[in-house]
């Protein structure tokens, strides 16, 4: 279930009256304005909207990478704004998996070592870490490339390694920021297949930011952002908007 009226209860992700302002050259820019969102576990949400509409900012706020100007974000019962420093880092390690447009792999580490990075922050033994990494690489179809460095992989393969890294610690939420933006259609489709599978088979809660309508079609719910506001609700009636929401 996805709601944008701010009246949901007990959802995995609860966002209330979220504002984000940036100051640039003495000018204050409203990136997000009074955004409400409730998302249950297992939902696959796509955010679309023009550049500067606040999609990536929303993702960053949900992942605890940035701090809201006002409002609250609650994920799995934790209010992110109340966390700071070590606790926020630990929370991210436990709950969030990030997939970036530019993969952001560490070039001097092999695929195996890149995927293993999040597990180094856990108490798992070396053999346990190895098992988890093998499973994650197997899931993205790169078990045979575990000893390859990023420069030895294609863009699509690099992104698959990045997905393996994002899921290896079994996070609560996957945040994908234009994961196919730097790939050709075929490679992009492979990535979307994997992400869809994570939603369908593993019931992962996924937030996907994209400019690509084809990619957005994979999501169960499509939300449009413009000028920091969720524009409207989907036509299938799965979520309820207030008149004020519609009036925006």
């Amino acid at each position, binding site marked *: 279930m996805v709601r944008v009226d701010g009246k949901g209860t007990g959802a995995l992700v609860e966002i209330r009256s979220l504002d984000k302002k940036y100051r640039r050259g003495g000018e204050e820019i409203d990136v997000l304005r009074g955004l409400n969102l409730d998302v249950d576990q297992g939902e696959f949400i796509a955010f679309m909207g023009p550049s500067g509409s606040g999609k990536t900012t929303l993702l960053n706020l949900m992942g605890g990478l940035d701090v809201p100007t006002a409002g609250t974000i609650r994920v799995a019962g934790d209010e992110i704004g109340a966390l700071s420093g070590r606790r926020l880092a630990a929370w991210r390690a436990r709950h969030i998996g990030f997939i970036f447009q530019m993969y952001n792999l560490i070039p001097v580490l092999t695929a195996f070592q890149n995927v293993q990075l999040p597990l180094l*922050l856990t108490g798992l033994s070396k053999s346990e870490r190895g098992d988890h990494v093998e499973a994650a690489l197997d899931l993205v179809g790169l078990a045979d490339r575990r000893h390859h460095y990023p420069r030895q992989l294609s863009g699509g393969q690099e992104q698959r390694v990045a997905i393996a890294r994002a899921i290896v610690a079994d996070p609560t939420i996957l945040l994908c920021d234009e994961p196919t933006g730097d790939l050709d259609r075929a490679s992009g489709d492979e990535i979307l297949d994997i992400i869809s599978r994570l939603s369908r088979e593993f019931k992962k809660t996924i937030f996907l930011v994209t400019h690509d309508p084809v990619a957005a079609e994979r999501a169960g719910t499509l939300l449009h952002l413009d000028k920091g506001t969720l524009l409207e609700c989907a036509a299938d009636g799965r979520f309820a908007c207030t008149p004020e929401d519609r009036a925006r």
Partner: protein
Amino acid sequence: MKFLHLVIVNLRRKKTRTALTIGSFTVALFLFGILATIKSALGSGVDVAGADRLVVRNRVSLIQPLPIAYRDQILRLPHVEEATFATWFGGYYQDMKNFFPNFAIDVPNWRRVYPEYKFSDEEWRAFAEDREGCVISPPLAKRFGWKIGDRIPLEATIWTGTWELNVRAIYETDRRELTSPELWFHYEYLDERRSFWKGFVGWYTVKIDDPASAVAAAAAIDDRFANSPYETKTETEKAFAAGFANQIGNIRLLILSIGSVVFFTLLLVTGNAMASAVRERTGELAVLKTIGMNDPTVLSLVMAEAIAVAAVGGGAGLVLAKLFTLRGDPTGGMLANFYLSPRNLALGFALALAAGAAAGILPALGAMRLRIVDALRRV
């Protein structure tokens, strides 16, 4: 330890830069090792000085002599238990480059004042009974392959001619700082053959009853010979040795100055290298933070890189310095106790680590304070 691999691969990422940074530590710590060794060698006399011994020399200068008759007068003064004397001979073996310290000593009284040098009674007796006999230290025996019974010629520099001596004893000591390459022979032999300064000695060493009496005893000695043609200056053996070492300048200040400049340069070089390394990896550091690495861990990773460079480079420099010092005194006797001690090795290594930490702290703090969203925007 989990992140050790990450530290290592990061250091190997820009091999030339890492090698040059390590090299700068190697050169700096090699230099430190040599300077520390020189300082120790010049000050080794200070370290071995007895607390209950005074040195009496001519008030004008160390190279001006004192009458041999002073010994009996000194012995009558309060707090004085024993007195002996020595005279610098300044000879060399075959060639000037083979120079080493050599003295003519007061054989009958020497052992009572310097008990730290050990001999078998048999060897000492052989030395005492042979007017042309001499005692050598183990390093000197090793340097020229001399053994007991050898007859060795010394070329005089202050006086003239070749002076032949018989090796009668090799002293032993368990104190490494006492084992400088040196030679002692009979004062009587010197006084008999030399053409001037007959009946004069270089300096006296006086054993007193209590180190606490040093000031009173020194004052008594100097008062006794005040207004005489050969006024004295008496000081503790430690002060005498320090003054002797400082004749060629303030070594400590010199070494500190050179060391400070080298370490400051090292800080700049390493700090710049680490800052570049962190700047190049801004995006990667942001990713590490994104996956949940906390700020102290990021700080530690960068610090570990800087300290690893310092440890490898500094360690290599100290090993090279140690190997260099193992070849012995490069000056042929001016730096008799040319030895890089474990204490100086440890001090050098600690300094290297401190320099690494100091060089890494600013880049590490920068990495720690990195805002993820800003850094990712730059990728």
